[in-house]
């Protein structure tokens, strides 16, 4: 314990720096413009849009898992809230109302569930959220008066931006939303609220000792994960042309969970990188036919085994190597 510090003069400011906040949104918007310029085929653009939609949804989850250190397996219910709110309201009340309604609905559910469930210890909370997600599916399937049951709601329209139409329009909207939530994610991380979340995960007694309410930060993180999930859910519904129960089943909650973990919890690029792996990879493995999921599963297990820090670990190692060869 007494000799942790190296004797040699250590480097300055090695800790995760405060990135310039506009870098990431700027890169995202530029990247989005490039994709439109290259103009991939309809299939590829659809896949890329789905990746961005899941990245939006997973940004809040990245905050939940990476900052507050909580695992939820029920966030599909928030995807469904966003998706169904869009399906029900977009055509009659316009996109802004539909998006906001989904966000508010998801936030209210998350706040109530969070206050009730977050007093449970880690594993029990995860199990309870699984129940929450399942409950959401049950409600969506059976509340036919509103959700139209298993048949789902079709003809839900999509958001039209910059005079575009079809999938490119949804793509641009998704990229803009991702840029926005990425900016907020980074602003949150360096703000007192985000820092309170991080110390609350790392050391709850110490956090309480400096005046942080760990329970409060956890509920806040859970609500934030619901908010971006609702945004992502609305995008997913638009891309699919409707809201269906299967879209928002437990599988999607697991995807949300795997995305930040496989890419590196709390890393600011984790939502996009993780979504690319979790959403796009299975699509491009279709040539493997039935073996697709086997290969995908093996890839995920390998990452879990050898890269506990996710893709971020590789990125950091490479950056360090580069930094050393330069310096």
């Amino acid at each position: 314990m007494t000799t942790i510090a190296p004797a040699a003069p250590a480097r300055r400011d090695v800790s995760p720096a405060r990135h310039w906040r506009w870098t990431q949104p700027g890169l995202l918007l530029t990247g989005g413009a490039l994709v439109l310029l290259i103009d991939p085929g309809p299939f590829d653009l659809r896949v890329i849009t789905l990746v961005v939609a899941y990245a939006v949804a997973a940004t809040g989850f990245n905050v939940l898992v990476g900052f507050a250190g909580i695992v939820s397996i029920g966030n599909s219910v928030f995807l469904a809230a966003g998706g169904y709110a869009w399906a029900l309201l977009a055509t009659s009340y316009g996109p802004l109302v539909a998006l906001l309604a989904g966000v508010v609905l998801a936030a209210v559910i998350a706040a109530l569930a969070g206050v009730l469930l977050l007093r449970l210890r880690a594993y029990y909370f995860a199990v309870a959220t699984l129940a929450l997600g399942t409950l959401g599916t049950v409600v969506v399937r059976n509340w036919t008066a509103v959700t139209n049951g298993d048949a789902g709601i079709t003809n839900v329209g999509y958001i039209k931006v910059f005079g575009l139409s079809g999938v490119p329009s949804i793509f641009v909207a998704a990229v803009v939303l991702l840029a926005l939530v990425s900016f907020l994610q980074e602003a949150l991380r360096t703000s007192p609220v985000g820092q309170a979340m991080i110390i609350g995960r790392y050391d709850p007694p110490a956090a309480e000792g400096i005046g942080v309410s760990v329970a409060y930060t956890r509920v806040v993180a859970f609500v934030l994960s619901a908010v971006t999930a609702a945004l992502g859910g609305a995008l997913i519904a638009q891309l699919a042309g409707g809201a269906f129960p299967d879209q928002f089943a437990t599988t999607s909650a697991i995807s949300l969970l795997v995305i930040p973990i496989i890419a590196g919890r709390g890393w600011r690029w984790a939502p996009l990188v993780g979504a690319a792996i979790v959403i796009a990879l299975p699509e491009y493995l279709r040539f493997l036919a039935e073996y697709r999921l086997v290969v995908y599963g093996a890839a995920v297990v390998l990452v879990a085994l050898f890269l506990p820090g996710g893709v971020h670990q590789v990125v950091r190692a490479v950056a360090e190597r580069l930094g050393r060869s330069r310096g």
Partner: protein
Amino acid sequence: MAERRPAGTLVGRGLSVSFGPLTAVDGVDIEIGPGECVGVIGPNGAGKSTLLNLLSGAVPADRGSVRLLRGSTEVRLDRAAARVRARHGIARLFQTARLVPDWSARENVELGVRTAGPAAWLEALGLPTSKRRAARRARAAEEALARVGLVERAGFRSAELSLGQQRLVELARILVADARILLLDEPFAGLSRSAREVVAGLVAQLRDEGVGILLVEHDLSQIRKLADRLVVMDHGRVLAAGPVEETLADPEVVKRYIGDVELEIGGALEEPAAPAPQPVAEQRSGPPMLQVRDLRVFYGPVAAVDGVSFDVAAGEGLGLVGPNGAGKSTILRGVAGLLRASGDVELAEQPLGSLATPDRYRRGLAFVPQTLTAVVDLTVEENLRLSWLTGTRADRFAEALDRVGELFPEVLDRRSEQAGALSGGQRQMLAIGRALMASPRTVLLDEPTAGLAPGLVPIFADALARLRATGVAVVVVEHNLGLVRAACTHVLGLQAGRPVWHGPTERFDAAVAHEVFLGAQPDTTQEEQVHS
């Protein structure tokens, strides 16, 4: 009762708490006024840390009241959670530094800056004004770091700082929080002399600025220097309280707590060295049990220890001493294979260099780390059995258990109790006992008496001497020179990762100790750069 105490006084009355059958704190009254330092001493298990937890709110009291006086009014805090008390300006320093290891020192300090709810949220939204607020926070953090002499290290990851520096960072976090009442749990434990001076200076300064301080500490020299009043606890009760010297002179206190071991604390090097118990064989019989040649131990690419060589024969004891950051614990970890090391390490003439840690343990090496590792949910005997099962099983369980019982009968008496119910000293005994269950031939110990009451030091010294008498070679890292002198045959003094003195214990006198701890540093960058 007329309350004529000054505003800002923290008053605890009749505080009690029990954990199961154990009453940890039993009806304690305590008062901490502004600008006053109240020292709390007592043997391990006396309830000092628990009392601190009751005042900070980390543990809710079963009975009693906690109030913060505010002029004519008062704030009742009995039911208030720790975070509420923290917002009332009651800050605590944990015994081990509690920092986010990936964050820089500055970021860790910034956590202490209180930001009101709405302002914090504006910043979380990334609004333009947040930049100014963040800059102000960073500046406050840097100023606080400057006060603890760590401003050059503001950008370093806190995990890269030494233990002493981490504690200073935590103190800086308390500084920016503008705490009015400071609860310190052994702030000097495990610190080098220079770091101790910085911490002591800071505590004195805060006290003079009007902060009320509760100082739980074993080191009586610090208590004498800093405390205005002293509270002596024993078995959860206040044994004596009053002015420091008077209370220390209280015959009851002397009898129950200090006895004549106070000499052990500073090492009392002016006294002639007590003859160290000699090894079983007077001359070195046969080859060394543990032989280390040109050991270099690395943290990443950095060699934290360089050019260390020593032999320890069966029945001998080697004490590794030196200021914080000298590389003492690092040597042990290098020998145990827990850190990358180069050079030769041989155990009973078998090279260990290429072996993984568990294989080294299988060859007869044992390592007792400074952090206590017992499984708290298991009983003492189950803990020992677990270690026996995972060890060589060279001896039968009963034999191994007897060996532990001979050294630490106190632990075996509680064999059917949960390990979590043991006191700090007993847990340390259990930790050593666990290492012995594997029938090792060489035992490495990292600060066995860190954080223990001085009264326990002779018990551990005696146990180590008896362990050596059974033919086991012992290497011990220790700050308490009393223990080293009583339990070791040889001493290796280190500075900044390099050996500076090596010889038999009898020759390790005051002059040598002065040289090792305060002498000119070898020409390498020093790890502890704390300025007062």
